[in-house]
Each structure stands twice: as C-alpha cells, then as structure tokens.
C-alpha cells in the first residue's frame, strides 16, 4: 500500500480515540443565549472591533476586521445587541484577549446583502477578495485566513491545490465527520478554491483509517462534476496532517525551511475550510459556525457538533451529555498539540477543532511523570518529523546558546510533540523549544529597538554638537565685531 511517494520520515502511530465520537452524525447545536467572539480567533492576529457596546447587529454582520494579513474578518454569529467588549480568557496563545459578547435576541435576523455567489464564474482576484470579506479561515486549527494563503499562492503562480483531510491527531475527528456528511460540499468548495487559484489539479488527501470518509468522497466525485479533483489515500501516521509533512508525503516535494508551500507550486487547505467555502458560495453565509469534536473520557457521549462561533465550551460539553466521572483537564485541540483551558466559559473560535475533556486515565502515565535528566538515547531524533536532533537542540536551548539553537533548527520544529511523547525522561521538549522561539523573537525585537535608539541617539548628539558650534561661532563673531569697533574707536 505504502509507496515511496508516501514515505514519511519518523512520526508516530498513536491510538486514535476517534470511534465513539463518530458513531452519531453531526449534531446541529441551537444558538446559545449569548456568544463570546474572541478577537484573536487563533491565528495570533488580534482584530479590531467595528461595533460598539449597546449596538444592535444582524446575523452575519461584520463585527471586527483584521489589521494585518494574518487575521480573518469576523462576523456576528447571532443577531442581537453587543453586551460587552472586554478582555476575557480565550483559547488563544496568550490565554486571554479582547472579546465581543453578543446577547442573542433569538430572531436570527439576517444581514441584508448576503446572497448566493456565482463563485465558479467570478474573476479569481475578485473571488479571493470576497473570501476575505466572508472571513473564511483555516478550520484545521490554525485559523489562518484562506484569502491570504490564496493571494500568496497566486502571487507565486502556485497552481496545485492540496486538501488536507489527514486529521492525524488523536481524539480529533471533526474533519472525518464533515467528509462523511458533506463530501459533495467539499468537492464543490475545492472547485471554488481551484477557480481562485486558476488551478487545474486538486488532491484530497485522507488517511487510510477513515474508510467511510474516503468512500463518501469517491462517491461524491463519481456523481458530480469532479473537474480535476481526486482522492489520495495516505497511511495514518502522526503528524501526517502537518502541512509540510502532508505535502512531502502526497506530492513528494519538500517545502523549504521557513518557506511557503506556494514556493513549490501548491497550496494546502483543510477539507472543512473547503466545505465552508461551498456553504458561502451556495448561500452567501460567511464563516459563522464550525464542526467541532467534543470528546474525552470526561464527557458522557463523545460527539461532533456544528456550533456557532462564540458558543461557550460549556454548551458544547452539555451537547455531549455533560461532564462525566472526574474530568481533570479541559483541552482545546487534541492530546498532542492542544492547549489547556481554565474555564468552560471560553467561546468557540475558528481554530478550535476539538474540545477534549480528559480524565486521569486519558492523561496517564504522563500526568504523574516528572522530568529526569536526558540520557541521550536518541529516541526523539528517530521520531522527529522534520528530522531534527531534539536532544542536541535541548542542550543548546538550556545553555542559552541561541545561535546553536537556530543552527540545530529551532525554527524548523513544527511543535508536534512527538519528541515529548517518546522521551523516557519525560522532558517537555516541545514546550522548551516553543519558549526558546518566544525568547528569540523577543531578542530580535530588542535588537530592532536598539538600532532605532542608536540612530536617534546619534542624531541627538549631532544636533547638540551643531548647536554648540553655532553658539561658539555666534560668540566669536560678536567678539570680532566688538574688537573691530573697539579698534575703530582707538584710531
């Protein structure tokens, strides 16, 4: 089955834990009484609100816009009144960010002007702009604006599209559910994305542990106008779904370190993103909801739900039958790269693909583990997907040797956590590398600030010297004048 094309350096075969949540179809969740829309939806870019407290907004109205290319336009996921705009706990990287709370008036009054798009006949640049306006972002977990990716690909002439349906991380199965239920939509979305790219070829990559999804996609391709779309089955290995790893596995090309996939002629989008694109094209509905897996041993009935953005995590857990047993951690994301939350009042964002309510048994045996010294066994190096030497990198990071850390590839680390998983000394390697990157960025910023300060100091000194010189010259001139007039008086 596995050909050379699918050869995949390192990685791990992990217990999937996906079966239970996939037993029932996707449950559509009713709109909650209020939604909390985080202004950082997960891409790290904080949006700027365009509404004020007390203002009434319609369903689908824009509530916040991006100030850089890394943020996606955010829309009201319910109709109602803006109750608050304030800093709250969020699932974003810094644990908190400014959020807009909307009180739902229950009417779902739709913003006028949202209508079906003739997406397959629009001019590609116009199509990209409309996707930007619709706030479509990567639903695979990064929430990176789709339009920005498409624009970068167009700029570099990347003509191939890769749809990522690998979904390799344990527990997460929302993409699988979407592929089973909305295969036709994914194919249609793929064709819209191909139009935006002027692409002629599209591959939907799915891991071989999702036979139902593969079958659904094949049927959709057989019954509709496929137009250059094909399905490719890849062996299930974590982290297959990481962009670079998937590209090297399916397309057989390496994306250069710190480069973009567009540089090797292709663009990667998540399958759920393609489904969201299709939804927008058919109805004009911007990105207002997403499918999310609610799972873990700490919930009664693991399930996939379609929920409005901003729906409190508590409501998602309730849809899964509520908490069960002794839940220990509430995690946004999967068991390998997820982030623990301290409250279930956090609102759903475009980036949250899974809510994992983990009990002690889910987290064992790592939970009670404590860090021991590195014994240099090299297990981390054998599983590292980008092929780094985590133990060497760890030594460099601990010793504060920034240059060595960069040489050893601290920027090439994809934060997958495979090294943590296999480390017999339970060293939190991925976390250390993440901290090191933050420190390096801080230092880079400090260096940039220092350069500005140096320039300003030099100009300041120069100006003071000029002023002193001018004063001296004026003094000399006055004295010369005084002497001159004195001489004249003498003669």
């Amino acid at each position, binding site marked *: 089955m596995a050909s050379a094309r699918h050869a995949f350096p390192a990685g791990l075969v992990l217990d999937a834990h996906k079966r239970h949540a996939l037993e029932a179809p996707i449950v559509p969740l009713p709109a909650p009484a209020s939604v909390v829309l985080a202004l950082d939806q997960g891409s790290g870019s904080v949006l700027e609100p365009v509404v004020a407290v007390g203002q009434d907004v319609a369903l689908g109205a824009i509530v916040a816009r991006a100030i850089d290319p890394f943020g996606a336009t955010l829309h009201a996921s319910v109709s109602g009144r803006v109750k608050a705009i304030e800093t709250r706990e969020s699932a974003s990287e810094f644990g908190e960010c400014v959020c807009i709370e909307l009180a739902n008036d229950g009417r779902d009054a739709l913003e006028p002007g949202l209508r079906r798009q003739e997406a397959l006949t629009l001019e590609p640049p116009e199509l990209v702009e409309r996707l930007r306006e619709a706030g479509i972002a990567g639903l695979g977990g990064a929430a990176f604006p789709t339009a920005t990716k498409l624009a970068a690909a167009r700029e570099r002439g990347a003509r191939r599209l890769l749809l990522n349906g690998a979904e390799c991380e344990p527990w997460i199965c929302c993409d699988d559910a979407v592929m089973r239920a909305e295969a036709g939509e994914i194919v249609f979305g793929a064709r819209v994305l191909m139009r935006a790219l002027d692409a002629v070829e599209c591959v939907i990559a799915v891991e071989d542990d999702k036979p139902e999804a593969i079958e659904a996609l094949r049927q959709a391709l057989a019954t509709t106008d496929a137009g250059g779309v094909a399905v490719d089955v890849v062996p299930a290995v974590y982290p297959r779904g990481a962009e670079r790893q998937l590209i090297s596995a399916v397309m057989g090309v390496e994306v250069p370190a710190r480069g973009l996939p567009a540089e090797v002629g292709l663009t990667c989008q998540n399958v759920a993103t393609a489904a969201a694109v299709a939804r927008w094209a058919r109805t004009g509905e911007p990105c207002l909801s997403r499918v999310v897996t609610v799972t873990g041993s700490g919930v009664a009935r693991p399930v996939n739900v379609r929920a409005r953005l901003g729906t409190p995590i508590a409501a998602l857990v309730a849809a899964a039958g509520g908490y069960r047993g002794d839940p220990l951690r509430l995690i946004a994301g999967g068991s390998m790269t997820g982030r623990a939350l301290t409250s279930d009042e956090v609102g759903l964002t475009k980036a949250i693909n899974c809510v994992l309510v983990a009990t002690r048994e889910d987290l064992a045996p790592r939970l009670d583990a404590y860090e021991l010294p590195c014994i240099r066994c090299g297990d981390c190096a054998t599983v590292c997907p980008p092929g780094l030497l985590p133990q060497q990198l760890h030594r460099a990071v601990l010793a504060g040797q920034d240059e060595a850390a960069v040489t050893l590839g601290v920027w090439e680390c994809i934060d997958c956590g495979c090294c943590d998983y296999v480390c017999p000394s339970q060293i939190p390697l991925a976390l250390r590398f993440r901290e090191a990157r933050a420190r390096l960025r801080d230092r880079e910023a400090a260096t940039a600030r220092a350069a500005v300060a140096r320039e300003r*100091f030099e100009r300041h000194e120069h100006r003071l010297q000029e002023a002193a010189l001018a004063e001296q010259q004026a003094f000399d001139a006055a004295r010369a004048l005084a002497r001159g007039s004195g001489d004249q008086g003498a003669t």
Partner: protein
Amino acid sequence: MNLDAILIACVVAAALALIVGGALGWAASRLPPATDQLVERIDAMLPQTQCAQCGYPGCRPYAEAIARGEAEIDRCPPGGDHTVRALAELLDREPRALDPAYDRPDQGALVAWIDEERCIGCARCLPVCPVDAIVGAPRHMHTILAERCTGCELCLAPCPVDCIELRPAQAIRHRWHRAA
C-alpha cells in the same frame, strides 16, 4: 635538475610572500583601523538605552572606552549578564558577574510616563532625553513616545515637579509560530 626545481619553488614562494605581504600592508594602511570596527561590534552588543549608568554618556562612548581598554565589560545593568557574556566572548575575556557598583535589580522593560495633569511645561526634560522621545515645548504639556523611550531615567532628575515616573513597558506579544 632537482636543484633547479627546488630553486624555482623557493623563488615562487618568496615572490608570493612579497606580493601578499605588500597587499596586506597596503590594505592595513588604507582601510579603517581595527579599533573602529571593534567599537562598532561592541556598540552593537550594547542595549542602546543610552542611560549612562556605566558612567559614560551613552552606549557608544562606553563601547569606545571598552575598546581602549579603559573600562571593564561589567558595567551595563540594562544589558545584564547576557551582554556581559557576549562581550566576554567577543573580547576573549573571562565572563564575570555585573560589577556590584553598577548592578541594579532587574525590573523588566520600563518606559517613562508623564503625569500630564502635573506637568508645568518647563521643557527641562526635553534636551536630556538621549533619544528625543519626549514631545513638548515651553509652557506646553509634554508627553513620552513610549515606543521610542529606552527607560534610561535621565529625564527624572531635571523635572522640578517630579511628574515623570517609570512604568512597566507594555509587553510585546509574539506568536510562537507565524508564517513568514
């Protein structure tokens, strides 16, 4: 025959040595002296707060003093241990702790802040700011350009009404991962 080969080799080697030596001598006389480059490199390692805590009126004067061998490398509190280590490596000296005479508790990044209610617009803080980060004019309220302020504290002493204080700089948040 063999002797000839040796002779030729010697002549060629001698000629090469002469040519290269001449070129190096010419370059040394024409190119800027090494101390300037050394000053540049030392200056690049200093944090550019221009705070004068080292006893020199700015980072570059301190860098010049180090290059001349007049000052030790352990006098820069804002740079901290990181800077001392970097300088030690550059100058091939033993790294050492910050000189206690110059050491101060690390308070993190600070920026000056003017209580605009109390500012009388005397303009005395304007010329002392080494990076021109204070905006103001006589009898007009002053304010700090927080992004340019290096937190050097030089503006505190001249203020007659003590309306300037140092506050923690707003933390710059960086994403751990971001596409280029």
